[in-house]
């Protein structure tokens, strides 16, 4: 079986991957030396294993990883399930070595593609764990919905330092957030699990945190009355992804000590939800989540990284935050804080209405954290992302039991 994504790769025996990679590097060094060059020492900082659900997404994943080689020289392993291999064996392996020179510095990467039949794909631990580079951090990126409770999946997971999932690409968001939180909790002592979708809105966390940097604004954090979060949705009749909005609300709740009043959605119509939370002294906070329909969405995997080439379209993926509005009261005075994406989707403007005096509005560049940039950010972290874990745990009580969808 020859996949498009392996066209430029060399097929090797699955049990000879290490030896063949070594041969590739020897050949490459010999060529450099023969040309009078200097064979450099390779730096490698991690192993990344990506599980892609099909060939198309495997090819996109490979592109994102290739672009990251200069930033994180690594061994990358992409696993994709296929119906049958050409050889009839359960597993086929392809390898490639890459040297990329940017600004005079050469980075090295190793890419391995494993095509596994459905059966073999369910028993990945024995195929991929031996390929992890010893002593370096190891990451597992699982595309789509993981088989949450499958023993084989968990055996694989336990061989990694960190695992990354993406709730933006998952259907039935609330159900999968619950499963994710359960997994995070169960694996707390072995694997650090995080969500690309949480990393993607890190610029929004910076924007909102900035409102409360001035000392005189801090009292408003004790008197928040309403939070309205708007998120990007496609056509009106298509299901919207609420993961970013919920995780953002969870982040606020975990940082500020709020807790949802059960699964307290009072108005449940398509694209609009309202929850009640209580702060540490029992004040009520209304959390409103609104879908903004008609935003041109693309798969996050297709979205460019922070570089934001001028002609890159689309700019946001499902459920991307569009605006955050916070109304708060302190000492009898009311203030509001708004961060809203501009119509070009590349910038956000902040507005702050406080009785203490004028704060200039600010327009800031909003880096579009597509898969490549999000992955780059995630690979910089080695331990648990406690902000994410706490945010997820804080919002879960608002989702269960059984959120209803009520037609308008």
């Amino acid at each position, binding site marked *: 079986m020859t996949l498009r994504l392996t066209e430029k790769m060399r097929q090797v025996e699955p049990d000879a991957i290490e030896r063949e990679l070594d041969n590739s590097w020897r050949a490459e060094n010999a060529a450099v030396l023969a040309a009078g060059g200097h064979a450099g020492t390779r730096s490698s900082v991690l192993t990344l294993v990506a599980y892609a659900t099909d060939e198309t997404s495997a090819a996109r994943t490979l592109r994102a990883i290739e672009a990251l080689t200069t930033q994180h020289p690594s061994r990358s392993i992409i696993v994709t399930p296929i119906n049958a291999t050409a050889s009839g064996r359960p597993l086929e392996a392809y390898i490639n070595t890459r040297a990329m020179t940017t600004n005079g510095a050469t980075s090295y990467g190793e890419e391995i593609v494993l095509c596994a039949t459905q059966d073999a794909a369910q028993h990945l631990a024995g195929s991929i764990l031996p390929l992890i580079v010893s002593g370096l951090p190891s990451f597992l990126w699982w595309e789509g919905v993981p088989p949450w409770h499958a023993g084989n999946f968990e055996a694989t997971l336990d061989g990694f330092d960190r695992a990354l999932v993406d709730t933006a690409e998952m259907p039935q968001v609330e159900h999968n957030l619950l499963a994710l939180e359960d997994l995070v909790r169960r694996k707390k002592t072995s694997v650090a699990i995080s969500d690309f979708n949480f990393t993607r809105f890190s610029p929004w966390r910076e924007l909102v945190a*900035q409102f409360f940097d*001035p000392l005189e604004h801090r009292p408003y954090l004790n008197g928040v009355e309403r939070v309205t979060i708007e998120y990007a949705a496609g056509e009106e009749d298509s299901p919207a992804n609420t993961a970013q909005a919920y995780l953002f609300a969870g982040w606020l709740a975990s940082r500020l*000590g709020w807790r949802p009043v059960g699964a307290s959605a009072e108005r449940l119509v398509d694209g609009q939800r309202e929850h009640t939370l209580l702060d*540490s002294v029992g004040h009520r906070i209304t959390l409103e989540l609104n879908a903004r329909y008609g935003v041109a969405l693309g798969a996050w995997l297709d979205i460019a990284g922070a570089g934001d080439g001028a002609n890159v379209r689309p700019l946001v993926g499902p459920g991307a935050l569009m605006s955050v509005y916070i109304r708060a009261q302190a000492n009898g005075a009311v203030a509001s804080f708004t961060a809203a994406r501009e119509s070009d989707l590349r*910038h956000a403007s902040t507005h702050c209405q406080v009785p203490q005096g*004028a704060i200039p509005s600010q*327009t800031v560049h909003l880096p579009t954290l597509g898969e490549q940039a999000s992955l780059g950010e995630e690979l910089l972290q080695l331990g648990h992302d*406690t902000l994410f874990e706490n945010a997820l745990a804080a919002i879960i009580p608002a989702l269960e039991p059984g959120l209803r969808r009520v037609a308008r």
Partner: protein
Amino acid sequence: MDSVALATNPLREGLRSTRTVQPCILVIFGATGDLTHRKLLPALYNLAIEQPLPPQFTVVGVARRPFTDEQFRQQALDSVNTFSRRRPVNPSVWETFSKGLFYCQSQFDDPAGYERLDHLLDRLDQERGTQGNRIFYLATPPSFYGDIGALLSSSGVAKRGAASGVSPWARIVVEKPFGHDLASARALNERLNKGFSERQIFRIDHYLGKETVQNIMVMRFGNGIFEPIWNRRYIDHVQITVAESIGIEGRADYYEQAGAIRDMVQNHMMQLLTLTAMEPPVTFGADSVRDEKVKVLRAIPPLMEAEISTDTVRGQYGPGLVAGEPVPGYCEEPGVNSHSQTGTFVAAKLLIENWRWAGVPFYLRTGKRLAKRVTEIAIQFKRPPYLLFQGAAAQQMQPNVLSMRIQPNEGISLQVSAKVPGQEMKLRTVNMDFLYGSSFGVEPPEAYERLLLDAMLGDSTLFTRIDETELAWTLVDTIVRDWQVTGTPLSRYEPGAWGPKEADTLIERDGRSWRRL
């Protein structure tokens, strides 16, 4: 969490920028000059686009040219579009950033100008919410530093604020050179002290803003394998090279006064030396780090007359060809006295008399029009105590050298001996290169971005303290005075080479040689 802790912003925890800049006005004296154009304005824009600046952040340019606010903004736009690493400018970000740029025309020694500046700053505090916080950045020729510092104080523009984060605060950032000798440095400091305490004075040595210079500390104190061998027992000597391939690039006025020893040795090279030689600080706080650097400077014994003649070399480049093109000698450079005795090259051997470094020489060399642009610290280790491999096998054996390259191709290289594959026992030296660019493809921030941000945050770790500055001047003054008294001649050197042959003699006398870079 039971209650929201108001002393800190709970939403900041765990975010990329945990250090936040308070609303403030940055006043740049010399706002139409080269430093502002090439470095400061692009660095500020880069900070704006990467978001650590608050919306209230305001810049006021002060200079002699009759600019309007709009003209200053246009100049800033040109600066960003030409020199920013984030160019071309992002129109939306520029729109709000440029609204915070203002201009005040004034001579630097005109009290009336400071009055106008004071009114403007007060007005901007009201309009933009900058809370009276000020940073004064002196990007003028050094001859104005004293006047500006004194007038900021006497005019009341620098209302005595706190150095810490308690509003309103005031700080002053002073570019190098801080004086041209010990006496002038002290005099300048005295004038600045009329309006600013030591904690409010931020003396810039932009080398300290370089990521690779900061990495010297990380490499030494963040890795367990280096520190145990970082001493006289294992290290034979240290070489520090700051070589430039260019000439003086039209800076004759400054360079004629400074020469290589004041331009490079007193500041950049002393920083590299102290970071290499210092003891582990108790914390990474500003005073802890600087205390340790000062201890190193104190441990360098003053050079005696006889030592200066043998352990220092001064040189000047003559005319010649570089890459096939004729280049003028130093004395033929525009604006330079044709009989100038200014040195464009310095080599020196220094000792550090403490338990760690006793008997380990530090060789320093710096110069203009040398073979290539390179800044490097090389730690040469002692040979193994017993040479197991003899004869032909050992011919190629070199001692281990750990070199830390600051620029270009930042990284670390370790020279080790290895066996050449084959039947015979032949040894060769191989390099284990670690390039930062190969392991972290992320573009590091410019030195000025880091330093400007630190000054706004009130973190003076990467700025030089007055005792550090004075000790470095003491060392340099001793050498310069001796050169003048004894009439130490300048050794000529070929442009594009590695300096005068006397520099080779200096190190070869000890049975060592300069590294070929």
